[in-house]
């Protein structure tokens, strides 16, 4: 069965290693913070200028000067640092952030990603997404495998305006985990109870399927 949003986030959190600096986009990526295994620690980077983002504040802790990149009120974790936007993106673009996790409208077999604009429909802007995909050491895209009309979001070539090129190497969807390499999606795991055939039918871009595709394991 397709994973819930929480389950996708849970699978994402398995990627992290102790000591990783991680930037989580809005939506499912943010949920991953809730599922970091007990035996490791990651530090969350928020691109408005906070490294070591803590939980949302209590009413007593609430402070208008303490927000994250999603403009939500947050706290600073022990050992946090706070800095300006140029420093924050120096950190991101200089390759110092270990993981960026973000959502997407489309990803293609060349590792291109479209996540910020739907012409004539959505003109909100790219925020920090283009910087994040250009700079992070490892990028994970989380999204549903297909849109609500059943159309695949894993394409041979993205159709929407791009956020970045040749930058996506790993995708975690509600159905599968896939690597992007050598011009194809490589299926490495499937959601528990989801068949390889279902994944094939919902993947429009070239898909490489090994003989054995293990199910994801949740602790």
């Amino acid at each position, binding site marked *: 069965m397709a994973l819930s949003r929480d389950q996708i986030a849970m699978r994402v959190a398995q990627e992290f290693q102790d000591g990783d600096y991680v930037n989580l986009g809005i939506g499912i990526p943010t949920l991953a913070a809730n599922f970091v295994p007990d035996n490791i620690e990651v530090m969350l980077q*928020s*691109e*408005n*200028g*906070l490294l070591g983002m803590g*939980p*949302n*504040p*209590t*009413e007593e*802790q*609430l*402070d*208008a*000067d*303490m*927000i*994250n990149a*999603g*403009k*939500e*009120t*947050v706290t*600073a974790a022990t050992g946090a640092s*706070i*800095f*300006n*936007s*140029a420093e*924050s*993106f120096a950190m*991101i*673009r200089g390759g110092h952030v270990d993981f960026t996790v973000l959502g997407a409208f489309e990803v293609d077999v060349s590792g*291109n990603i479209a996540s910020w*604009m739907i012409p004539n429909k959505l*003109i*909100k*802007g*790219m*925020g*920090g*997404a*283009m*910087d994040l995909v*250009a*700079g992070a050491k490892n990028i994970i895209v989380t999204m549903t495998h297909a849109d609500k009309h059943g159309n695949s979001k894993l394409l041979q070539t993205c159709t929407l*305006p*791009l*956020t*970045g*090129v*040749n930058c996506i190497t790993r995708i975690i969807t509600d159905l599968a985990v896939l690597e992007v390499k050598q011009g194809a999606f490589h299926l490495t795991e499937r959601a528990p109870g989801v068949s390889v055939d279902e994944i094939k039918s919902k993947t429009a871009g070239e898909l490489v399927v090994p003989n054995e595709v293990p199910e994801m394991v949740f602790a």
Partner: protein
Amino acid sequence: MAGFDKVVTSYAEAMAGLEDDMTVIAGGFGLCGIPEGLIAQIKTMQTKGLTIVSNNCGVDSFGLGILLENKQVKKMVSSYVGENALFEQQLLNGELEVELTPQGTLAEKMRAGGAGIPAFYTATGYGTPVGEGKESREFNGRPYILEESITGDFAIVKAYKADRYGNCIYRHTAQNFNPMAATAGKITVLEVEEIVEPGELEPSQIHTPGIYIDRVIQGCFEKRIERKVLAK
């Protein structure tokens, strides 16, 4: 010996010299760390045709949004304007131009403008609409695009504490774009929560040295919260 005392006592004095069609660089991220009183003063002045360089454009009734409402803005240079319905409407009507710029590129363009660097290469935006029409070049086998710096006729900046010389510190994440904006204005105006005497701020803890600041005004801030989220 008043040469370094930059404190002014009225908003009119603070924004004196602002004219139609000028470029104004504004600090702040969303509604966090914005120079509320200076924005209100621009509204009062009814200056038209402004180009505003700011990561966001406030919300419909607060922050830079009030200048949109008042049709004072010709062009916005921003990375994200999704909180602002009026923005979308004016853009679709053709009343407003927008130059969407990646957030890190925007921060770096302001810094470069203040630092005498006319242009720099970045990987951000290569192969996307942001890179269209810009020079691209490979360094060590990776493609980058050339981005030019930004300077403004005015910069409006919000800090926590400043001394009379303009040396200042920012509080928590209200820092954001403010330090870069401060360097990039021909005239930089700083609105602060508290003015202290020179010597009260520890020299090596000052975020923005006073050399970048032309005028300092004590403000009074509402500090509206855009998304109040509490611990569960």
